[in-house]
């Protein structure tokens, strides 16, 4: 009988045993899924929840009219996990020869897409085989990055980044500076206003899978705050114009370097600031450090004769001199101690106006010695020499304006015609701005201001006007700066030619050609300084090298700024003809 073999209690025993096993499992499930869930979730989160930075969009830099000068565009960076790559390759080699071939082929194509040899790519991956992250190529165009992604090489990932692009290229690069690959400002405005521009990166909480891919955005921890835009005072139209002319003259005279600074005469806004040599900020592969400097702001030079109008201003301010005051410059030199101060010619007895027009060292020295070094220094100091202009530019030059306890006559004399002190092109432009703005200094600025400051009183308006009139004569027939003339406009300015300072003092054959001018001279719109360093060849005088740059740039500037011409015969002629046509038509 069966009953004798299988005893019922044994069956129940086994069933009960199995039942207990299920209950045990159920209890364990409760323990894990209910009691320990917090601990387990915490452990799970530790392996999957990650915080990712959200990169903030860097602010745009524009010129005063909103023309973009520095913009960040979205690009893709391709990075790789070499560890994963080798692991996958090995797995494929062991298990799936077909897949192995596919990976090898894709790697080959990857190398092609990245423009490197397959060998060097593999070497790099081999060298970094223990690493989980290397950059393959940063800042690729999105289309190319997509191609790379489509190759599906194991361990290759894309990441969104931004690239800084400078539409104006070399024209504005000294002002703008540039950022590094991580979009941190390195030079220029990019550096000076880095915090303003960069914004604050955000953070998000994400869920990552076992291969480090984001599977879900969990929460936004902090929104990325995009950087703020920055509007510069530059007017790109004038900037281009100034750059073109500067580059042309530096090339033509095979000069070492050059700068042009243009200020708005009424506000102090820097309308143009260009330098040579320059570089392309969008491709900085082969730049040398010499071309990096914004020379107009950083480089110091002795201003030479461009100081004479300012010396005269100090004299006029005393009230003891007027433009017509006669000074005897005979015999064309002035001996102070063992040093001779010379003019080009013996100009004889000339008035103050002519001293500026002829650029007489002797005349200027005599005036300076008369009004004393303190008065001269005081004027120079008020004009801003020896102090930072304060546009907040990195590496801004301060310059040297010595103030000895006791003035030596020779020091006073040389300072009166611009030796023994040094300054930047920007400082020189700022001082001429005072002349242009009837004695009121408006601080130069590179970033557009909401309100223009009232300015500082530096000298009486009549003094400034008188000096301007003299500057007009420099440019007029018989002056040293005739080549600065501009058709239809009366402009004024002062030339300067200084010996460059080398290792052993002044160098005989190396010059700086300078021109500082105001246009139009009656009702000034702009102030401009031209500095050409080391022109080689026969022409090296400020009037020959720097003045023509002034002329050409100002001629374009006047038209672009819609400045009313002082005289325009051609226009008068055409108006007359128009009237005649109209008259004929009527009758």
């Amino acid at each position: 009988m069966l009953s004798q073999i299988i005893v019922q209690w044994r069956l129940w025993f086994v069933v009960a045993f199995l039942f207990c096993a299920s209950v045990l499992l159920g209890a364990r499930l409760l323990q894990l899924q209910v009691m320990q869930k917090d601990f387990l979730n915490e452990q799970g989160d530790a392996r999957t929840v990650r915080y990712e930075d959200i990169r903030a969009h860097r602010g745009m830099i524009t010129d005063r009219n909103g023309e973009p000068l520095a913009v960040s565009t979205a690009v893709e960076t391709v990075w790789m996990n070499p560890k994963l790559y080798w692991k996958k390759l090995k797995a494929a080699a062991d298990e799936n020869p077909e897949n192995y071939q596919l990976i090898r082929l894709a790697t080959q194509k990857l190398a092609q897409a990245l423009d490197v040899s397959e060998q060097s790519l593999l070497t790099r991956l081999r060298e970094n085989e223990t690493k989980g992250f290397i950059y393959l190529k940063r800042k690729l165009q999105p289309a190319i990055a997509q191609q790379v992604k489509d190759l599906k090489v194991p361990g290759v990932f894309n990441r969104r980044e931004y690239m800084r692009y400078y539409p104006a290229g070399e024209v504005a690069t000294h002002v703008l500076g540039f950022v590094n690959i991580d979009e941190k400002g390195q030079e220029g405005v990019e550096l000076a206003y880095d915090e303003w521009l960069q914004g604050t990166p955000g953070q998000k909480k994400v869920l990552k899978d076992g291969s480090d891919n984001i599977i879900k955005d969990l929460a936004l921890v902090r929104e990325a705050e995009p950087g703020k835009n920055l509007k510069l005072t530059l007017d790109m139209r004038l900037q281009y114009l100034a750059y073109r002319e500067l580059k042309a003259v530096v090339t033509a005279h095979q000069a070492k370097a050059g700068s042009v600074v243009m200020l708005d005469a009424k506000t102090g806004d820097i309308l143009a600031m260009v330098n040579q040599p320059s570089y392309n900020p969008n491709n900085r592969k082969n730049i040398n450090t010499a071309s990096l400097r914004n020379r107009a702001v950083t480089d110091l030079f002795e201003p030479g004769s461009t100081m004479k109008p300012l010396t005269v201003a100090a004299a006029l301010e005393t009230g003891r001199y007027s433009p017509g005051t006669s000074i005897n410059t005979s015999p064309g030199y002035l001996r102070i101690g063992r040093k001779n101060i010379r003019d080009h010619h013996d100009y004889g007895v000339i008035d103050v106006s002519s001293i500026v027009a002829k650029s007489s060292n002797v005349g200027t020295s005599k005036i300076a010695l008369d009004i004393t070094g303190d008065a001269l220094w005081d004027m120079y100091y008020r004009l801003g020499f020896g102090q930072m202009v304060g546009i907040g530019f990195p590496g801004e030059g301060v310059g040297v304006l010595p103030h000895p306890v006791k003035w030596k006559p020779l020091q006073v004399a040389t300072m009166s015609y611009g030796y023994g002190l040094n300054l930047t092109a920007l400082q020189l432009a700022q001082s001429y701005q005072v002349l242009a703005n009837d004695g009121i200094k408006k601080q130069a600025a590179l970033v557009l201001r909401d309100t223009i400051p009232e300015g500082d009183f530096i000298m009486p308006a009549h003094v400034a006007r008188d000096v301007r009139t003299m500057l007009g004569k420099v440019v007029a027939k018989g002056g040293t700066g005739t080549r600065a003339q501009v058709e239809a406009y009366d402009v004024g300015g002062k030339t300067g030619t200084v010996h460059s300072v080398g290792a052993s003092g002044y160098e005989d054959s190396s010059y700086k050609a300078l021109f500082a001018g105001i246009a139009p001279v009656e009702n000034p719109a702009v102030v401009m300084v031209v500095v050409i360093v080391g022109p080689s060849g026969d022409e090296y005088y400020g009037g020959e090298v720097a003045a023509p740059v002034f002329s050409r740039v100002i001629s374009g500037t006047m038209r672009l700024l819609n400045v009313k011409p002082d005289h325009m015969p051609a226009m008068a002629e055409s108006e007359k003809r128009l009237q005649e046509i109209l008259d004929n038509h009527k009758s």
Partner: protein
Amino acid sequence: MNANSAPLMHSTTTGKNAASENAAGFDWWLLLSAGALLYIGMMMITSASTQVGEVKLDNPFYYFSRHAVFMVLGLVAAVIVSRVKISWWFDSGWFLLFTSLALLIAVLVVGREVNGSTRWIRLGPVNIQPSEIAKIFLIGYLAGYLVRRQDEVRDSWWGFFKPIAVMFIAAILLLIEPDFGATVVIVAASLGMIFLSGAKLGKFLVLILVCLALGTLLIIWKPYRLKRLIAYTDPWADQFDTGYQLTQSLIAFGRGEWTGLGLGQSIQKLMFLPEAHTDFVYAIIAEEFGFIGAASVVVLFSVLVFRGMRIGANAEKAGQLYSALFAYGISLLIGIQAFINIGVNTGLLPTKGLTLPLVSYGGSSLVMSCIAIGILYRIDKESRWAKAAESADESRQTKSKYKRTAGPAIYG
């Protein structure tokens, strides 16, 4: 002993189920629970394997499509098996034994080594796992032996020892692979069958002690087993090496909480939990459907195993002793394997390479699980037919006689 308990049991069930368990009926609960588990398996394998298929094989539906093919194969096999008379299994005892042993030896000779174990024989596009086939066949053989030599088994040590020696050989072959999990399952199911076959308790206890001693020896003998054993006691101590898989599995359970993250929402399957679609698919069920889903699977297995045991009991009542033992063996096989798999998933037991029957990905396991259900179905049918024939006989002779004997048994 217990000479009067058998008629009691016999008549009780007959009286109750005479109407419902007729010859045309079948065990709904068995098929429903098995079908539900197959369905859950299909769904969860699809959910758990898309990522791993995409990453490893560039085809998110690789595992799904293969599993689907095996499921069709399994269902066809189950239907075929359900048409095979149980007497065929009984008569083919030697065939079953030799096929099992031959396959287990063959795998050691021509098998493929994966992760240090030689468990698969490559046969064209599919890999066959002989241990899965051996499990059912050996149970079939053992049931036959226990029935044929029931007196010998009960009365003499030698008779008791012989079937155990045969299972011992199979166990050694499995351990050489090594497949410790399959060994444990088959040994445990065999022990259960021997116990149910009525072996003397004293002998049985000795056998249990010997098995435990051997098991302990095995664990100490191979250091990696000891390492695994230690790893499972505190997986967090070495969570990035030996404890990695288990900690990832436990995290899946914790994340599931009561109701789960929802179908397809598992995070652990995304390259965190290795073998998420095979041995650890249960953890993904727990993560996506929470305690409710995980407990449901336990309930489904409990129903399946209980119905299997019940089919065995019914067969026994119908006088089909071989069928009964075979059904017990198969039920135990499924139950123990499911228990071990879930135990491993939940960290109750040390890690082993065992699938969850009917649910996990794996062709051999799936097809053999379906065949097991097919056999249970057949046993159920045959016992129903026998019962129907018997009651027809009885009613043809004298209904009153039957009632008379049954009456006092029910109420008395």
